[in-house]
C-alpha cells in the first residue's frame, strides 16, 4: 500500500487541505495482501502519558491552540520537528503516528489498570474475577498464530515496593475471562524459555519424553472405553499429540533460532540483580527481536515499567527519584528522560526489523508497535486521554502513519475510546467484531454513539 505520506508527497497537498479527510490509498488499487503474518508489539508504560509532552514544538499558532484546547485536527509529521524525547525515531517518522485524544475511562483509572488497559475494562484491584475478557493482544495473537502464540515480557515490579521480579510470574494480559497470563520477568528467563530448543536440548527432550509417555499411557485406556467416555480420553490424547507436534515445529525452527540467537550478557544471569535498567531494557529488546525474527511468536506484550520499577540507574535521574514520586511531581524533564529510554528501545526494534528482509521489503513492513500508557494522561489518570505512539510498517492495514492525530475530546460527538481503537485493529486485520471492550459511561449517559472501528483509520 502506498501510504498517506507518499500520496501527500506525490500530490503536494498539505496537512491543512487533508485534515480529517479519508484515505486516498484505495484509489491506487494496490493489494495489501502480503502472505506474511502481521506482528504486533504492545508496550505498556506507567505514570500515564502527559499530552503536552507529545505536542510538536513546531506547531503553528492555530495548531497549538487546537492542541491545547483539545480540538480534533491532523498534522503531517514530515513538516514538523519531533519533541526531544522522540528525536531518536526521526529517521522513522514516516512510520510514526502520534495519537492524541483516545480515552480509556472504562479501564478504571487510579495508579494501575492492570489488564484493564489491554481489555478495555476495569480490572478493579486485579482480582482474577475482575478479568473480564480476552485481552486485545491475545485476540490478535489468535489471528496470527505462531508456535509460542503470545509472549509477555515485563519489567513491572509487581509489588508494593520498588524492585525487580525474576522468573516466570503473573502478567497483565489475559487469554480468557478470569485467566491471568504469565510473563517473563527478566531477560535471562525469557532467553532460557524461548530459545531452549537450541540452548537446552536436554530440557526440551525431557519435556517431550514426558508428553510421549503420557500420550502412550492415556491411549492404553482407550481400548477399554466407548461412547462419550472414550471421547473424553481421546480428546486428552489428541491434545497431548498437538502439543507434542507444536514442540516439534519449534524444534524445526532450531536452525533459524540458532542463527538469530541474541547474545545475552552474563550480568543477567540468576535474575540479573546487578543489571541496570537500561541493560535490562536492552536485553529484553534483543530477546524479543530474536523471538519475532525466528518466527516463534508474532505478538509480544511488554510492560516496560510500572510504578515500582527501579529507575535509579537511569542516566539522567540524578536525584534517584522513583517512578511513583515522579508521578506526583511536576518534573516533566525526568518524565521525558524515562520516555526517551523507551524510545531508544523502540528505535532499536524498528531498525533491526527493517534490516531483516521479508517478502518484497522487510519484516518491519508487517509489524505494528504500539506504545501506550497504562493509566491515561497522568499518574492517577485522567483517563479522558491516553497519548499513544504507533509505529507501523508499509503493509499496515491502517492509514495513520506519518501523522499527528488528535481526535475529538472525551464525551463529545465523534470522540473515540480505547474500545474503538481496539475494534479498529481487529477489524483491520480480519476480525469483524462490531465492538470490542466496555463502553464509556459518560458517552453512554450523553447517548453519544461510541461503538465500532475508527473508520478514518482503516486503509
Amino acid at each position, binding site marked *: 500500500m502506498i501510504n498517506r505520506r507518499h500520496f501527500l508527497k506525490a500530490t503536494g497537498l498539505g496537512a491543512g487541505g487533508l485534515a480529517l479527510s479519508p484515505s486516498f490509498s484505495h484509489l491506487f488499487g494496490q493489494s495489501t495482501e502480503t502472505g506474511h503474518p502481521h506482528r504486533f508489539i504492545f508496550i505498556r508504560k506507567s505514570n500515564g502519558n502527559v499530552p503536552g509532552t507529545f505536542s510538536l514544538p513546531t506547531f503553528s499558532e492555530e495548531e497549538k491552540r487546537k492542541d491545547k484546547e483539545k480540538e480534533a485536527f491532523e498534522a503531517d509529521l514530515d513538516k514538523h520537528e519531533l519533541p526531544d524525547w522522540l528525536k531518536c525515531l526521526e529517521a522513522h517518522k514516516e512510520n510514526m503516528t502520534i495519537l492524541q485524544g483516545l480515552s480509556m475511562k472504562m479501564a478504571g483509572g487510579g495508579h494501575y489498570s492492570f489488564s484493564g488497559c489491554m481489555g478495555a475494562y476495569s480490572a*478493579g*484491584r*486485579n*482480582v*482474577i*474475577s475482575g478479568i473480564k475478557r480476552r485481552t486485545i493482544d491475545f485476540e490478535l495473537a489468535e489471528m496470527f498464530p505462531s508456535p509460542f502464540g503470545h509472549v509477555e515480557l515485563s519489567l*513491572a515490579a*509487581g*509489588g*508494593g*515496593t*520498588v524492585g525487580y521480579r525474576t522468573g*516466570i*510470574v*503473573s502478567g497483565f494480559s489475559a487469554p*480468557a*475471562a*478470569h*485467566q*491471568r497470563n*504469565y510473563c517473563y520477568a527478566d531477560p535471562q528467563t525469557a532467553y532460557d524459555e524461548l530459545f531452549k530448543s537450541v540452548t537446552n536440548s*536436554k*530440557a526440551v*527432550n*525431557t519435556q517431550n*519424553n*514426558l508428553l510421549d*509417555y*503420557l500420550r502412550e*499411557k*492415556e491411549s492404553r*485406556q482407550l481400548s477399554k*472405553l*466407548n*461412547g*462419550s*467416555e472414550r471421547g*473424553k480420553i481421546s*480428546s*486428552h490424547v*489428541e*491434545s497431548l499429540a*498437538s*502439543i507434542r507436534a507444536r514442540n516439534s515445529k519449534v524444534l524445526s525452527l532450531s536452525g533459524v533460532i540458532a542463527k538469530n540467537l541474541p547474545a545475552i550478557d552474563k*550480568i543477567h544471569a540468576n535474575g540479573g*540483580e*546487578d543489571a*541496570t535498567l537500561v541493560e535490562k531494557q536492552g536485553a529484553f529488546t534483543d530477546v524479543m527481536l530474536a523471538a519475532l525474527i525466528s518466527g516463534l511468536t508474532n505478538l509480544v506484550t511488554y510492560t516496560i515499567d510500572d510504578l515500582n520499577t*527501579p529507575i535509579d*540507574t537511569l542516566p539522567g535521574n*540524578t*536525584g*534517584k527519584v*522513583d517512578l511513583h*514520586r515522579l508521578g506526583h511531581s511536576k518534573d516533566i524533564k525526568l518524565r521525558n528522560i524515562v520516555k526517551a529510554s523507551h524510545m531508544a528501545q523502540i528505535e532499536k526494534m524498528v531498525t533491526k526489523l527493517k534490516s531483516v528482509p521479508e517478502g518484497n521489503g522487510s519484516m518491519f513492513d508487517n509489524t505494528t508497535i504500539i506504545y501506550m500508557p497504562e493509566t491515561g494522561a497522568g499518574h492517577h489518570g485522567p483517563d479522558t486521554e491516553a497519548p499513544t505512539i504507533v509505529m507501523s510498517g508499509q503493509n499496515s492495514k491502517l492509514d495513520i502513519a506519518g501523522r499527528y492525530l488528535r481526535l475529538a475530546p472525551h464525551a463529545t460527538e465523534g470522540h473515540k475510546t480505547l474500545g474503538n481503537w481496539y475494534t479498529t485493529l481487529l477489524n483491520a486485520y480480519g476480525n469483524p467484531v462490531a465492538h470490542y471492550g466496555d*463502553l464509556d*459511561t459518560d458517552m*453512554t*449517559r450523553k*447517548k453519544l454513539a461510541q461503538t465500532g472501528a475508527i473508520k478514518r483509520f482503516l486503509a
Partner: protein
Amino acid sequence: MKLLPLFLTTCSLIAMASASPITIPAKVTDLLDNYCYDCHDEDTQKGDLRLDQLGSQTLEARLNLLNKLQEQVFFQEMPPKKKKRQPTENERAAILKWAGSELKKHKASRLEEKLKRSEYGNYIDHQKLFSGEYAKLPAFTHDRRWLISEFIFNDKINKLVNHEGVRTIDGTRQTVIGDNGVNLGTRFGGSSLRQSITNPFLLPAKIGVRYYDNTALTGGHLLTMISNARKIAGHITSETIMKAHYPAMHRIMEMELSQRETLRSRESFLEDHIPALLQDLFKKQHQDLLPTFTRAQIDKIEVLLDKKGQAAKLQDNLELIHGRYDAEDIKAIYRGLNEYSQDGVSYQEVVEKTEKDWFEHGINPKRIQSRVTLMMIISKHWDMDLIRKDVQKRNVTRPAFRPLPEPEMATVKAALKKHRKKGDTYLQVIAKCMADWEQSFLAEREKSDSGNAEALGNLIEELYLKILERKPTATESRDELALTQDYIANLDLQSGIAKLVETLILSSELVYRYEFGQGPADQDGRRMMSARDASYALAFALTDNSPDPELTAAAREGRLETREDYRREVKRMLARRDQFYIIQERVQKDGFNSSLTNTPIRKLRFFREFFGYPAAFNIFKDAPRFGNHANYLDARGRLIDEADMLVDHILQNDTMVFEELLSTEKFYTYHTGNNADMKASADRIKTIYDYFKKYDWENFTEEELYEHWPFINKMKMRGTVFRNFMKDEKRRKGWVRSFKSTMTSFAFRLGKGQKAAAPYNSFPQHYSHKGNASTRTGQQMRGVDVAKFFNVDHTHWDYPVTQPAQVPHRRGILTHPAWLIAHSLNLETDPVRRGKWVREKLLAGTIPDVPITVDAVVPEDHHRTLRMRLEEKTGENYCWKCHERMNPLGIAFEIYDDFGRFRLQERLEHPDNIIAPAPKERGLHIDGRPTYKTLPVNAKGHLRGTGDPALDGDITDALDLAQRLAQSSKVRQSIIRYTFRYFMGRNENLSDSKTLIEAEQAYLKNKGSFDAVIISLLTSDSFIYRKPAPLESHDQ
C-alpha cells in the same frame, strides 16, 4: 395434501448429482406431506427451508436440514402451535426415529449432545416425570469420568502447594476452605505461588446449574496445566516442602540437601567474615593482595531547589528511603554509615571507606556507583539528623563473628589459602572456593546410591498418595520407575523428581472424577459404584474436597456398600457445623465482607447458581446512576454477601425452604449476621449520643472537649485521642473536628427518636481501623450504601439490630436487589430475561433460542417507558409466540429499577429529560441523582403455567407473583428438577421419575427440608447405580 410424483414415494430416492442415497419410508413421506410440505416445498419455503427434495441435496446440506428438522420436531416448535393440524405423539416419534437413523448413519446427529446440556433439561416432559407412570423404570447414571470443577481444582491445588486458609471468625482463629489466595496481601498478582496458578476449569458464566459431566479435557486445559504443573512441581520439590511433607523424596535428596546446607553455611560465613579471615590468614600480605581501589565516578549532586529556585525543604519521610529504593542498597549504606560515622570523621570520608569496602568485596561497579550517588543525594536532599537517628535506631552492623565448627573452619581456611590470588575481590575468592567444594560434593554424590530403585519406588508411591490419593499399581510403579530414572539421567536428581511430579499432575486422573459401577450387575444391568468412587461422589456432591477421614474410613472398612451406608454418611456430612467455607472470595474482596458459611458449601452454592444473584458482579453499572458520592462497588459486594446470608439463614432453619426463599419478607440490610455484635455496636453509638446530647457539643471548645476525656477514652471514639491533647496543638483541631463529625452523624441517626443507629462509620477511615462495627472476620464493616438498594430512608432509619428483618415492598429472593441487578442490563431493567428465568427455573418451561434473524434490542425512545417500547417490539405475532411466555412474568418486576430499588415512577433517563442535575451535596439521606421526567410504572402481568387455576391468572406486580409462585407445586417440582441436575451433574430422564417423586415426597414429609431432598437424591437409584455408557456406532 400435496402429492409427490409416484416414483418418489417408494423407499429410496434416487441420488441426483452429488447427493448420496436417502431412505424415506412411505409412512414418513405421508407425515411430511401432512404436516410440513404446506410451508416447506417447491411452492413455499418459509424460513428458506424446503423439505421435499432431500434426496437431491449434497450430503452436508441434507444433514444440516435433518438436524434442524429433528430439533424443531423434538422441541415441538414445528408445526407451529397455531396450526390446528398437529402430529400425534406416535407420529412425531416416527418422524424423529427416521430423521435420527438417517443422521446416525453419518454420525451427524446433534440432538443427543444438545439434550445433555443443562439448558435443555426442561425438554423432558414435566408431567411425565411426576405423574408416576414412569416410576417403575430402573434409574441409574452412566459410568462416567466427570471433569473437575474450578472449585475442586482449587482445593486440589491448595493441598499440593500447602496453601491453607485461615480467618479469625467471631474472634476465633480457624481454618477455612475456599481460600485460594485472592486476598493475599498484594493486588499485583503473582507474588505468591498460589496466585500464579491459573485455573483452567472455570465453569460457564451463566445463571443456572453450571457443573455438568459433559465436558472433556481440551488442549487449552492441558497447556495451562503444563505451566501449572511446573510451578507446583517446583514447590513440592523445594527443600523446605520436601523436608516437611515428602519423607521418601527427602531421603533420596538428603545427601545433596545436606551438602547444599553446608555450602550455604560456608558461603554465608564467608560473605560476613572474609575480610577478617583473610587478614588473619595472610597477615601483612593481606593488604597487598587486595585489588587496587578505584573510586566510582559520580555526577555532582545539586542542592534541592523549589519552584522559586530557593533551597527546598529537606526530605523527612523515611518511608521513602525504605520503600522506594533497593532494600539491599539501603542496608549496605546504613551499615557503612553506622560503622564509619564517628566524631571527627567527615561524611566524605565515611562514603569513601564504605565505598572501599564494597569495592574490595566485589560489588558490581555500577551498583557501587549507584549507591555512592544515593549516599550523596541523601546528604544533600535529606534531613541528616533524621537519617543519623534512623541509622542508629536500625543499627545495621556486620554480624558478630561466630566461627564454624572446627572441621569446617579448617576446610574454609584451606580453600582460602588455595584459591586467593592477588587482586581478587572477596566475591571472586568466594566463587572459586564454592566451585571447588561443589565439585567435590558432586563426586561424593555420584559415588552414593541415593537414587536407587527401591528409594525411587518409595518416592513413586509417596507421590501417588499425595497427588492421586491412591497407591500405584504394579505396572505404574514399574513404568514410572523407568521414566524417573530416564529423567534423572538427563537432568539432575531434583529436576528429575520434579519432572515425575509434573507427569503425575498432567495425568487425566487428577482432573477427572471417576464414577464407575463395580461388582455384580442386577437384572437391569446396573451396578453400584466401588466404595472408593462412591466416597468421592458423595464428598464432591456436598463439598469441593476429597472425602473426609470418616468417609474414607467407611469406604476402606466396607461401610459404604448399601443405601443405608450412603444415608448415614450424607446425614453426617450435612449435620457438620465445624468447618467454615468461604462462599466467594470476590465478595470478601469487594468491601471486606466475611462471605462465610459453616454448612457444606455446595448446598448454598446450588441456590447461588439457581437464582444467579452473584451475577450482579458481571453487570456493569454506571455508579453515578446509583447516586453521586455513593460507593456502588462496596455496596454491591455487601448486597451479594447479605443475599448469601439470607439464603444461608433459611437453609440453616431448613423449614419450608422453597417457600421461604420465594416469599420471605425479611432481609438483611447492612448487617453481619451476628445479632449480638450488631446490637453491641448500635448500643455503643446510642451510649455516646445519649451522653453528649445534653451538652452543647456542637460548640465545644478544645478545653471543653478535653473534660470528657475519660468517657471518650472508655468508648474509644475513633479520631479522638486525648492522651497528649493539651500538648499537641497541631493535632487538637483535627480531633475536635472529627469529634463533631462523629456526633453530627450520630445525631442524624438518633435525633428523630430512632431507637437504634446503623453502625456505619461517621467518616472514611483506613481499612486497618475497626470502625463502629466489624464483620465476623474482624474487618471494618463497609458498604452502608447497600441500604439505598432497599429504599431505606436514612433520616428515619430505626436500624433493626436483629435481622433478617421486615423490609417493605419485598418478597423473596426475586425481589432482592442482587437478583434484580443480575437480571438487568447496564442501564435498564430486563423484563424479558427476568420472565425467561421465571418460566424456565420455576415453571419448568422452555423458551427457544433467539432466531438469528432477530435484532433483539429494545428501541430507544426517551418519551416512553421500557414496557411501552418492549410491547411494541415484541407484540408482533412472530415474536409474541415466544415472548408471551416471558414478558407477562418479567414485566411484573417493573416495580423495581435496574438497581433493584422499588419505584412507582419510571425515570426517563435522557439528557433531554433532565429537570435538575444531581445535587452536589453529599449524604446518605440524599438521593444523589439528577431529577428526570417520569412516567408511572405499570407492572401488571399474567401468570400461566402453574397448572393450578387458583394461582394462574392476572397479577398486579412482582409481590403478587412471588406469593403465588411460593404456593405452587409445579414450582416446587421444578426446583427439585434443578436440584437433581446440580447433584447428579446431568439432565434427568424419564427413568429418573421415581427419584424425583421421592425427593418431592421427602421435602413434603419433612416440613420443607432441603436436607431431606438432598438425602433422598443421594440415596436414590439414580445416584447409587451405574451402567456402562452406550456404544456409539464408531465404537464398533
